[in-house]
């Protein structure tokens, strides 16, 4: 219903006892007076986890559940076992991020990024602006040339694979490793898949840097994403400073919101 009314919705926010919110171009609108019931949250989580919330605990600890390409962030009370977070209960809100396969104003950047001399590409933006959508489109374009693209889909968000079939089209030449940490996935892909390109979403921890080094050391092109507004912003953070110092990436693409659209900027590194 919400998507019929707001087809360009980027997120749906459901908070118990409050009206649903819809995020469009980074701004939240409230959809009517009717408030969200706790039962609605439980129903959505039941559907998203296949009535197996217990099996989704590791994903929940990571911040969200992936379901058919949707990213569902969950708020509630922590369940602790000693000092370890083992789950959440008494759910109070959900943030459902809706993926868009169409890139708003991104067709031109795709043409330039898939030129053979483009090399390894790092895509950066703040959360929710479109890194994953651009990476997905980039993979699809490259894998349709065709080049062999190994996708390290640690959280099953890039492909949203269900029973071995990707929900999102990632092109004919793509192979997807789901749920494998990037550092291990990189080795598996390099040894077993003979890729031209390896793609990974969200470099967030030091272990991911070793995956980047392994891939670059084998002469394979890398497509990756990171959180950051621009190059300066990224250089302020130790992890990304180290990432950039590896000299692996030839191009940095930053994305920012403008009105209801996106601005894609490309810079050589």
């Amino acid at each position, binding site marked *: 219903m919400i998507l019929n009314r707001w087809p360009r919705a980027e997120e749906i926010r459901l908070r118990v006892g409050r009206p649903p919110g819809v995020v469009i171009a980074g701004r939240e609108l409230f959809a009517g007076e009717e408030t969200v019931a706790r039962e609605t949250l*439980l*129903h959505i*989580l*039941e*559907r998203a*986890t*296949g*009535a*197996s*919330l*217990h*099996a989704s*605990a590791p994903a929940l600890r990571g911040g969200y559940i992936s379901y058919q390409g949707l990213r569902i962030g969950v708020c509630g009370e922590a*369940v602790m076992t000693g000092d370890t977070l*083992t*789950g*959440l*209960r008494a759910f109070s809100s959900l943030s459902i991020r809706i993926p868009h396969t169409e890139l708003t104003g991104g067709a031109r950047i795709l043409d330039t990024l898939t030129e053979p001399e483009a090399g390894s590409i790092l895509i950066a933006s703040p959360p929710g602006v479109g890194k994953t959508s651009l990476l997905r489109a980039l993979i699809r374009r490259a894998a349709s040339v065709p080049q062999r693209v190994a996708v390290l889909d640690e959280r099953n968000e890039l492909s949203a694979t269900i029973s071995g079939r990707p929900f999102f089209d990632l092109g004919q030449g793509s192979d997807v490793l789901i749920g494998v940490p990037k550092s291990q996935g990189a080795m598996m892909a390099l040894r077993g898949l003979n890729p031209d390109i390896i793609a990974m979403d969200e470099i967030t921890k030091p272990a991911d840097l070793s995956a980047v080094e392994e891939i670059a050391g084998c002469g394979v092109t890398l497509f990756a994403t990171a959180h950051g507004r621009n190059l300066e912003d990224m250089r302020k953070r130790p992890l990304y400073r180290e990432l950039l110092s590896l000299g692996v990436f030839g191009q940095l693409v930053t994305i920012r919101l403008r009105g209801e659209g996106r601005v894609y900027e490309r810079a050589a590194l």
Partner: protein
Amino acid sequence: MRRALGFALLLLSAALWASERIQDRAAQNEALRSFCGLLGQLYGLLETEGAPMPELLQTLTERADGAARDFAAALSASLPALGEQSFEALYRAALAQNPVARDKDARRALEALGAVLGRYELKTQLDAVSGCLAALRRELDKREGETRDAGRLTLGLSLSGAALLGIILL
């Protein structure tokens, strides 16, 4: 001679009726026992493997027996409808077809479990399974005691009733 035959037939039919009632109670107890076994296995599988519900039900269908296996198989077969219907509705439908549901207390305990299973974090689910298991064991103990006493009573009453009827009629 005919009177004796008629008398014997009356006693036989009363004994058969009583035996059927006793067997029915025993089958009901057996169904409850199988559900106790299923819940014990479910607790272990949830605690150690934490596998998703379709895998859990598949394993339970292979490992459980009797009425509990039929329940696990029916619920597992209905899972493709998840989304159109809630897990609780599918669970209740599978339970309603099962002989264990003829025991109202057992049914109530199992329905309460269906409202929690798969919906909440692990500890809440484990607590619900162990609570349901305890309720079913209590019910089974009660029924087994009743079955022994009620079996003798049913047989005695039905035979003496048949004998009395025979004396009056014949």
